[in-house]
């Protein structure tokens, strides 16, 4: 049964190939069916694998298709490695991916380039699966770059708009900076440990010198930071919302953006050797989480609210990784994939219903026209805000908050930042709900389609029940998720909870409920709009990072390119040529065509030669 593993990436890849080559000759319906179906089959394969795993866990399963290249001990293969962590990722990627594909079949139904859309989407799923199943770092890098490429192509999908293409370029380039750090990390790890196989690296990691471990972990972190839009490489994510909404849901919320989390969790053996970098991970996560939450609060564009929210939630996962709470991070990744995909898909319906309007301040009262979407988004927002005891978001967030204090690497101030972020999260989530669905009603087209309601429904259910797989100890400690992942991801050493756990649990609940309450007061009762100045403006523009990078990096580079444009080195050769021409001018002036002049020169030469004889 596990030998079917190779189908998981191959099916979407085949979908891509068919769509890219012969798709032009096929009708739109067939193209759509191909695009959705290939991912659906991949999801089915994943489910089969999961069922097989549940029946008889093999520990880990490795499948080598062929040797990619082999030079000495540098021998990455096209090899897939399935373990519990990879399986969780695989299920989420293909499962959520399939739901989003179904939704996209509705969302993109009128787009003339639907074939191209599904080709890119299928390629993305294939690459993401390669990423999570990769057995060695070069193959992981292949998937890593592949998803980056698809992200680029899909952000710039509507290429006629120059702004979209610019956003796509920005996303690719900024993540590429991180990718370069990642590949240098790969070089370093091979140079130190003599292998690129991930499991072998993890096994050999304790043999690293502290300096090498720190460098390697820092470089890997660089890659993760770029892909997951964390400080200081976070600026691309809000602009990436230029892509179609299913893209935002799949790539920029559920899967690709969390690849950094996966990378760090996958390579945790290296990170545990580098405590300094672990702290850096936690701090980066915490700061990003807080800053992004503030920005989300000030956004007017519906999708940008969700983008900053994603950034903030991924920051929370990073904080979890930084304190060693690997399982909690992956848990939050999973629940986040459910509710954030749900939110994005719902937001897509809203935008569609309003004819492309994305400004939340111009929306309102939509719960009458779009009741189904209202409920779906409400569930999503509740889960995002961590509504106590019934939503998945509550349990995953609480696990992180709890460990951020009580884990050995945790600290009260990390918890405090997390708690405050959770509060802000509730505020902005319900600001969105209240502004969009309550208040005075605006004109909208109702949407009724199974391709919308089924994915939304499934995701809504998952957003609720997805949390009951890892309950805190005080609520019974039912934790099959942690048990499942334990062979791969160790539990962090932690202090004994006891009553303290109850207190923290209550605090989380308070943050969530308090945030919702504040949102109700501010936005449901009064419909406060943030002013376009001061702090709100600063937050809305993402804390001014774009302007800063423009000034520090982009403009100097453009200046440099402009200065060098005509190849400064060539000036030297042109100078050389000019000198030659000048000498030529002098010499050709001597060549004046007069016979007597030549004869005179001859005589002068004779005089000189004889003079030599005379003086000798």
């Amino acid at each position, binding site marked *: 049964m596990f030998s079917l593993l190779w189908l998981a990436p191959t099916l979407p890849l085949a979908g891509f190939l068919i769509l890219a080559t012969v798709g032009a000759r096929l009708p739109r319906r067939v193209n759509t069916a191909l695009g959705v179906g290939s991912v659906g089959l991949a999801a089915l394969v994943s489910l089969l694998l999961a069922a097989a795993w549940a029946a008889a866990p093999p520990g880990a399963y490795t499948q080598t298709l062929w040797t*990619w290249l082999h030079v000495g001990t540098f021998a990455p293969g096209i090899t897939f490695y399935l373990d519990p962590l990879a399986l969780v990722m695989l299920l989420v990627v293909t499962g959520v991916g399939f739901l989003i594909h179904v939704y996209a079949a509705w969302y993109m139904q009128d787009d003339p380039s639907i074939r191209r859309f599904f080709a890119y989407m299928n390629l993305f799923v294939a690459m993401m699966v390669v990423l999570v199943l990769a057995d060695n770092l070069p193959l992981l890098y292949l998937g890593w770059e592949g998803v980056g490429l698809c992200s680029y192509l899909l952000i710039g999908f509507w*290429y006629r708009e120059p702004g979209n293409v610019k956003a796509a370029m920005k996303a690719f380039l900024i993540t590429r900076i991180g990718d370069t750090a990642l590949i240098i990390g790969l*070089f370093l790890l091979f140079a130190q440990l003599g292998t690129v196989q991930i499991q072998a690296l993890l096994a050999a990691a304790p043999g690293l010198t502290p300096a090498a471990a720190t460098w390697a972990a820092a470089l890997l972190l660089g890659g993760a930071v770029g892909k997951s839009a964390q400080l200081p490489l976070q600026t691309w994510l809000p602009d990436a919302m230029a892509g179609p909404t299913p893209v935002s849901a799949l790539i920029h919320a559920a899967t690709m953006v969390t690849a950094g989390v996966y990378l760090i969790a996958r390579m945790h053996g290296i990170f545990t050797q580098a405590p300094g970098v672990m702290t850096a991970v936690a701090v980066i996560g915490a700061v990003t989480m807080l800053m992004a939450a503030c920005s989300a609060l000030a956004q007017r564009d519906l999708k940008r609210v969700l983008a900053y929210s994603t950034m903030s939630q991924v920051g929370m996962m990073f904080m979890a990784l930084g304190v060693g709470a690997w399982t909690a991070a992956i848990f939050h990744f999973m629940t986040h994939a459910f509710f954030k995909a749900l939110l994005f898909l719902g937001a897509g319906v809203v935008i569609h219903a309003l004819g492309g309007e994305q400004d939340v301040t111009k929306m309102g009262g939509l719960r009458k026209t779009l009741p189904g979407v209202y409920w779906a988004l409400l569930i999503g927002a509740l889960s995002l805000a961590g509504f106590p005891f019934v939503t998945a978001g509550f349990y995953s967030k609480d696990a992180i908050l709890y460990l951020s204090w009580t884990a050995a690497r945790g600290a009260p101030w990390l918890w405090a930042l997390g708690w405050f972020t959770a509060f802000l999260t509730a505020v902005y989530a319900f600001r969105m709900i209240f502004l969009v669905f309550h208040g005075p009603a605006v004109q909208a087209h109702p949407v009724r389609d199974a391709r919308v309601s089924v994915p939304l429904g499934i995701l809504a259910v998952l957003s609720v029940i997805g949390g009951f797989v890892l309950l805190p100890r005080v609520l019974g400690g039912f934790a099959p998720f942690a048990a499942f992942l334990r062979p791969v991801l160790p539990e962090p050493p932690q202090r004994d909870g006891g009553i303290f756990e109850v207190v923290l649990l209550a605090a989380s609940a308070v943050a969530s409920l308090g945030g919702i309450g504040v949102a109700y007061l501010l936005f449901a009762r009064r419909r406060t709009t943030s002013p376009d100045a001061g702090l709100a403006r600063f937050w809305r523009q993402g804390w001014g990072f774009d302007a800063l990078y423009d000034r520090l990096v982009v403009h100097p580079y453009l200046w440099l390119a402009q200065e060098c444009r005509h190849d400064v*080195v060539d000036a030297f050769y042109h100078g050389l040529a000019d000198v030659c021409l000048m000498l030529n001018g002098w010499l050709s002036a001597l060549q004046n065509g007069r016979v007597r002049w030549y004869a005179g020169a001859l005589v002068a030469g004779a005089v000189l030669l004889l003079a030599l004889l005379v003086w000798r």
Partner: protein
Amino acid sequence: MILLALILIPLLGGLLAWWAERFGTRATRWVALVATVLQLGVAAGIWAVHPGGGQTWWLDYARPWIPQFGIGLHLALDGFSLLLVLLTGVIGVLSVAASWEGITVKVGFFHFNLLWTLAGITGIFLSFDLFLFYVCWEVMLVPLYFLIDVWGHEERHFAAKKFFIFTQTAGLFLLLGMLGLVLTVAARFHVLTFDYFTLMQHPLGLYPLARWLMLGFFLAFAVKLPAVPLHTWLPDAHTQAPVAGSVDLAGLVLKVGAYGLMRLTLPLFPEISRAFAPIALTLAVLGILYGAVLAFAQTDLKRLVAYTSISHMGFVLLGIFSFNTMAWLGVTIILLAHGLSTGALFIFVGILNDRVKTRDITRMGGLWARAPILGGLTLFFALAALGLPGLGTFVGELLVLQGTFLVQPLFAVLASLGFILSSIYALWMLQRVFFGPPAPHVEARDVKPHETAMLAAAIALTLWLGLYPQPMLDTARAGVAQMLSTPEGGTP
């Protein structure tokens, strides 16, 4: 004997193609195509029937030529040379196909020059006598000069002269170095010979003059490669050459520089080259970054592609002067992959120029709407240029950088910045040409079938190199190891 055939096929094919012009240009084109396909077929045949295994020299052919001076007609073939000969065959076919419609004047003479250039290049890859090497070097250059000067674009005369002056000066350095080497060896060991293997058995070591001889050998090939700051002939030549000329230049002529460094400069002067490595590595990193920055700054599409070549050849130089097998195998892959992908990019520019009658990217835009297939194909090669994993260039650069990192981590890290800069220019090019609102007054048909076929072949080969380069690596390994096996022994 079969080695001689590899050179003679294009040589005679060229004459025949010229002569066949009296039966019409179609005859000429078909003769040229048959000759290149035949050469490719022979090379592929050698590869197919070779049993594999560890032996270094696959074939050897030696006849005396001018025995008084120790000059012989010595041809030999190892796996490394074979791969480059195969590349020559592929690029040859591509360049004949690429000029199928573009070249309309003096068709016979054009194909004569094209095939003789190919013959010269093949000869360089097979010659193991320095004198013969130099003869082939010249056979390559002169027809190329005509290709640029007669069939080039608007500033072709300038570009052709610049090309010729640079490469001829480089050839002069090569000649001086060769003669100096031969005479020094003759003076020290009383063996007057131009034979590569005999010279290899008489190492000069750290003999004082050897430093200058090595410099001569280095400069000659560094101009050809080209290494910054000796590169300025390349943008002009690439820009002004006809499509087939650009494809040849990028696909093959630059490879000759790398080949020369790997086959001659380093094995003949191992100690001095090692001492020289820091300078060469610095030049390599400079080339990678400088080429990428300048590529981004260009508005002429061909010039842009030309500067990307400079950037990529920086990786080649970096790998060569890292002195280890991994980097050298990476260089081999880069040579093959860059030949294909840059050659294809030039074909694409040619197609584009044919459609929109300009190479100025500020006057293009939104072409995707008009020519989606062309866009998709170009996207592929732009991605190959920026080093996307799974495509040939990446495998080469990965091995080069990893190999370099083992011995010179700092240079490898600096060179890795090229990944970032290369994505800037590649995406910028895509954006200016294909995305954005469609430019007005641009009528663009999509690709024709034979153009698709050419590019599809290049795509298939690039993917092969990117996903399963192992056959190439195995083929090249013994030869590369042999070149690296210096008195001190190469780093594994």
